[in-house]
């Protein structure tokens, strides 16, 4: 579990349960500051603590094993050519902004395809 997973899971569980930090803390018989510090990433909770907090929000924490990622030489080669400036720009946007931007790009692509089709039709004798 990376450092961001615990806070994200706890926040998601609390939001889905529509609980405030205080309400969740009360349900888990702990202090609000404990919840706040974990969500802010200031404290790394043990698995048992996280399970107890998530359970107080009405959820079960399940852990699964996933195969370890093996380095793939082709992927590594492709990765060198990824334009990371575009990714960084996107990461500054909200999810809705990202989706709206892609929808606009797609619409422009479709409009261009139509224009090309018309142009070809005009050229055909």
């Amino acid at each position, binding site marked *: 579990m990376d450092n961001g997973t615990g806070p994200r899971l706890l926040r*998601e569980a609390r939001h*889905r349960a529509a609980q405030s930090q205080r309400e969740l803390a009360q349900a888990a018989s702990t202090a609000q500051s404990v919840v706040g510090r974990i969500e802010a990433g200031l404290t790394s909770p043990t698995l048992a603590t996280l399970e107890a907090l998530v359970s107080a929000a009405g959820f079960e924490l*399940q852990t*699964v094993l996933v195969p370890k*990622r093996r380095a793939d030489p082709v992927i590594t080669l492709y*990765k060198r050519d990824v334009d990371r400036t575009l990714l960084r720009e996107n990461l500054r946007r909200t999810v809705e902004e990202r989706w709206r931007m892609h929808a606009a790009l797609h619409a422009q692509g479709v409009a261009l395809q139509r224009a090309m089709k018309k142009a070809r039709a005009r050229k055909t004798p």
Partner: protein
Amino acid sequence: MIPLEQFLAALHGRGVDFVIIGGVAAQAHGSARVTQDLDICYSRTRDNIARLVRALTPFAPYLRGASRGLPFQWSAATVQAGLNFTLTTTIGDLDLLGEVTGGGGFAQLAQHSVEVEAFGFETRIISLPWLIHVKRAAGRPKDLEVIAELEALEEEIRRAKR
């Protein structure tokens, strides 16, 4: 591309259980790649299939690439009898998946999803690590470039957190 706002409103309006996967999920995570269709993994419970069918009926789903006039009927019985469907609708192309290679069905994918807020809805999308896992498991050569971008994205997210 399918207008997401309209589509999400239809699915959430009927309370359909689904997870967005594929290119649109990658875009939500920050991918710069353009995609034409929307892929979702839906829960195969009888009730959810009924909700899904009701939600999509206004968009007249039909088998993508199939000639008109086939005995295809968009109904709960059809979805129940099948699993994965590549569909065209009046608002765009849509892939409905009951199971995903290497990713399992809705229940498993839901465990590897994150909720994102967009267009006024909380929508589940496959998590970035699990999307990479699923793409790797599919083993399709065409996905290698996509995986490279997703892994670069993962690195950029980590870098931004530092």
